[in-house]
């Protein structure tokens, strides 16, 4: 490699304090090349993790990669798009035995403009909380209890989380037919609510 095109270290650069101009010119390309090779390799290994050796590389560097938030995956709609339509509902049970139904802003019920800022609810509930992230279910239950605590003398004591869903018909059967109603149900969990969970809720 030739050094003809190398740029000098900038004036007032912190590098000036550490290295002479000639030293930096000598090591610039190897350092940048190492940086490029490392990150391109890590990206490749993370995205195409299909061999034990690749897995070992990922395991070794995962601390750095995850710390920096550089992990990435572009498998949207693959190997196929999601084949179910889900939504999540909560039933809040109060101390006097009454109950109240709660659901989040569901995209299919929102108008054009409202659904744009509310898209995070879709990602959180329909892609994650309704399926594979039980770690957030207790937090959702507490949040629902707090937002549905209207009467100081009648606090929520229980929140049940229920997922409703329906399978999308295959193309051969589904063309020109509406989606089936989301009637398959599964109780994800029933969470008791304590006074501590309701701390800080303001009452009018």
């Amino acid at each position, binding site marked *: 490699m030739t050094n003809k095109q190398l740029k000098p270290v900038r004036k007032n650069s912190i590098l000036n304090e550490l290295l002479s101009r000639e030293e930096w010119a000598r090591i610039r390309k190897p350092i940048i090349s190492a940086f490029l090779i490392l990150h391109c390799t890590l990206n490749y290994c993370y995205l195409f993790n299909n061999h034990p050796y690749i897995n070992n590389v990922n395991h070794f560097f995962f601390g750095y990669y995850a710390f920096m938030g550089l992990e990435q995956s572009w498998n949207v709609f693959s190997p196929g798009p999601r084949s179910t339509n889900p939504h999540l509902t909560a039933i809040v049970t109060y101390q006097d035995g009454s109950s109240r139904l709660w659901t989040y802003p569901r*995209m299919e019920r929102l108008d054009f403009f409202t659904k744009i800022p509310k898209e995070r609810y879709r990602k959180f509930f329909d892609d994650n909380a309704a399926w594979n992230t039980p770690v957030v279910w207790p937090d959702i239950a507490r949040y629902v209890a707090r937002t549905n605590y209207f009467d100081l003398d009648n606090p929520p004591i229980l929140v049940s989380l229920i997922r409703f869903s329906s399978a999308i018909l295959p193309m051969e059967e589904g063309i020109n037919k509406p989606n089936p109603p989301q009637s398959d149900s599964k109780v994800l969990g029933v969470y008791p609510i304590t006074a501590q969970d309701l701390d800080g809720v303001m009452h009018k």
Partner: protein
Amino acid sequence: MSIYTILQAWDRFWFSEVSPLSVAVYRILLGFLTIAFILLLIPDLFVWFGSHGMCSNQAVADWNNGHAVFLNLFSFFPDNDQFLVVFQCVFFLAAVALTLGFHARVAATICYLCLTSLYHRNPFIFNAGDTYLRVSTFWLIFSASGNALALTGRQKRSNPAGNFNSYKKVSIWPLRLLQIQLATVYWHTFFCKIVGGPWIDGSAVFTASRIEDLQRLPLPFVFEHAWTINLLTWGTLGIEGALFTLIWIKEFRYWVIAFAVIFHLTIEYHMNIPIFEWLMIVSYVLFFEPEHLALAITWLRNKFTNQKVTTPN
């Protein structure tokens, strides 16, 4: 082929010099999208990141099996809603600074830190577009995006008489990283799709069109006929395949980009995935020849201002 030839090719690809104009235009467009990202988060900021929100720090730590050492500014002030407000304000100012090119490298660093912190605080609300924004901002830190079309750093560049072709050239490797990042998106998605199933049998677009929570505006006729669904499914594979291969070839580049823009605008019309499609569209500017961008910017300036300057090649 000798090792010397390989090293020369490596040197030419990563260490030649180029006008900073492409990466500067990209910085401005990415800045606008970062501002949109911030504004769209504001209505439910406390729901997603607040101390009494829907996702606690403990839940995220549990999700990560207790490994909680991540780049996350919220770790310094956990469950502090005042800090969250200050954080969001600083993030907004950094995004504005990035757009204007006010200490662009510092602004990009702050934007990256904020995006990464939000992701590590609540990873369950972010989609692929947010990941792309975060990773792109990281690469942007290394680029000389502030050496053109920027408020500060004018001493580093020469731009006599507003000639957009005369910027002092900069090292190309950060631009290459951004280009490779874009190509990687399509490379990975393409290979994840061609393993078989609905993308090969031609039905994937039908299933995608039936996901109720993603629908924005209806697309009549297209999703009611098998042949149009097949065409769109295989067309998607074709466009995504071209976006990591043919886009590197000068003669095909603008054609590929034109098809890709139509492709993403169609998705934007039909599906509610805010910002993502626009992010992909603005990223194509990284593949534009700087001379063509200079011509376009000169035309825009002449159109909207009284200055009449021509850009010599």
